[in-house]
């Protein structure tokens, strides 16, 4: 295994069983993720593209260990990823930024508590109010918010500010891999540009890898180094971003690119 690889997913599957009626004895299976393998390199932005229901989010859940995998293996820096292994502290190294900043922050907690909680849990700082406030204030500066935000509640912030708090929370444990689950799709045009700039900036500064889950190809072209196209739980194509947009190989990738509305897209293209 190359030293440059930070995360290696090999032949991973997640099958959900369901029963059509109460007395159904057949085993119906939905293959949400079916035999997916890919590598994510260090300092790379790896985009995962696909329609709703293609298994993008299940894949991110599998990587985070939020759901049991059916089969397959995930390696983090060459070691099997096992969140129960206390020595390795994988939890600290892989973090996720959620899609919707309105529902991913606890409305009852002040901002400093939200940001410093992962750090306290992972033993980076002590569970003292003064420590937590100082820690949060510094993190907030990194994401372009004023320090006075620490004592606010989430409802006092706008969507863009909340997403920044979400970013600050992810970065509080200094992860090496960050999963971005549609980070700007809930935000406005002008705000999403600010967040994208911030994410690109932080990646350069901290040398992290991103797995960037999205369905917006414009963002992929703007940010990603490599693209992986998923459909029905399987990977259709993995390519470098340039190659993907200049010469897509798989028919599904071609349809995707064709159906992107862009500034040069007029009624005749419909």
């Amino acid at each position, binding site marked *: 295994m190359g030293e440059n690889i930070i995360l290696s997913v090999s032949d991973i599957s997640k099958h959900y069983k369901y029963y059509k009626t109460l007395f159904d004895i057949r085993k119906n299976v939905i293959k949400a993720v079916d035999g997916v393998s890919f590598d994510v390199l260090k300092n790379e932005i790896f985009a995962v593209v696909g*329609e*709703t229901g293609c298994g993008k989010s299940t894949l991110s859940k599998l990587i985070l260990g939020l759901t049991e995998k059916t089969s397959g293996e995930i390696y983090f820096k060459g070691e099997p990823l096992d969140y129960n292994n206390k020595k390795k502290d994988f939890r600290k190294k892989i973090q996720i930024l959620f899609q919707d900043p309105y529902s991913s922050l606890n409305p009852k907690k002040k901002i400093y508590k939200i940001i410093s909680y992962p750090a306290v849990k992972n033993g980076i700082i002590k569970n003292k109010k003064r420590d937590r406030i100082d820690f949060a204030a510094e993190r907030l500066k990194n994401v372009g918010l004023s320090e006075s935000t620490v004592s606010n509640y989430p409802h006092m912030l*706008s969507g*863009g500010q909340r997403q920044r708090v979400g970013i600050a929370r992810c970065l509080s444990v200094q992860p090496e891999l960050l999963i971005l689950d549609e980070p700007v799709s809930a935000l*406005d*045009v*002008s*705000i*999403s*540009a*600010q967040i*994208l*700039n911030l994410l*690109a900036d932080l990646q350069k500064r901290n040398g992290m890898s991103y797995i960037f889950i999205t*369905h*917006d*190809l*414009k*963002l992929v*072209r*703007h*940010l990603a180094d490599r693209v992986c196209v998923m459909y029905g739980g399987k990977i259709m194509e993995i390519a470098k*971003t340039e190659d993907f*947009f200049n010469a897509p190989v798989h028919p599904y990738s071609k*349809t*995707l690119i064709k*159906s*992107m*509305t*862009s*500034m*040069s*897209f*007029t*009624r005749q*293209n*419909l």
Partner: protein
Amino acid sequence: MSIEINNLTVELCADKHNANCINVADSLFLTVDEGEVVSIVGESGSGKSFLGLSILRLNPLRISKITSGEIKIKCKSQKTEIDILKLNPDELIGARGRLVSMIFQDPNTSLNPVMKIGEQITEAIIAHKKVSKKEAKDTAVSYLNSMNIDGKSRFGSYPYELSGGMRQRVMIAMAMVLEPCFLIADEPTTALDVTTSLQVLKLIEDIREKSNIGVIFITHDLTVARSISDRTYVFYAGQVMESGNTGDLINNPAHPYTISLIKSVPSLSADYVPKQKLFTIPGFLTKDDFSKGKCRFYSRCFKRGEECLKDIPLSSFTGGGKSGRDVRCVKVKNF
């Protein structure tokens, strides 16, 4: 089959005692011709959805009122021009759905979850027309078929059994079933995927071609506006900042706000350089932007100057484009 909005002003107040009012639509002029798609583009909070609701007079009465203006609609089924703002409540109920119809933003929340979709469509027909249940059902099925949904088998489905794209098509069927003269589509593609949103756009384009009705298409995505509309109005804080032919406006924007909006979206064109820093509009839309006596975009504009601190009218330019362009900016003299 056209709509003409003249000098429309809608007031939105913080409480029912009419204190702290702002103009969410500020002396607005807008026309849509027969068979024309006009899009309204702007950030969230700019008052574009509120305008859509105001045209149907669905704006919440407790906190908002239409203070001036007229909304004239010409329709084939009606002999004379109708001013929506002058209708009494009974007439208004008849007008909604028949004269003007609306596709709402989120199909997941605007369909009734405990009613079959077929029933929801026939309900609208029976409320407006004197037809039997059987006839109403036939109409509903045929409309569902025309939206590429198998009407017969899907008539008895509940909304949860349908995908997002199908739900949105049901919403469109429901809006079209009374054959309105005019359609307002409030962000119909925002909640959808790339490929399904393209299907919905195609459907709206088909409807426009077949029945030749006027459409107001509300969106925050300039690329979607480009793909569907003939003319575009760029909205900010309840005012039209720029309007004109869609192609002209996007290829050659004049108002600083339009320029910023276009620049802040990464593009797919061949000459675009990835990984560069995106242009951003500083800050966000606040209540202060709605205050009078200055350009409403002043606090976030990259071109601002002292001359912007007065009320700025919408002025017409006949620049390089074919059609006239209206721009609300003192800095733009000619282009």
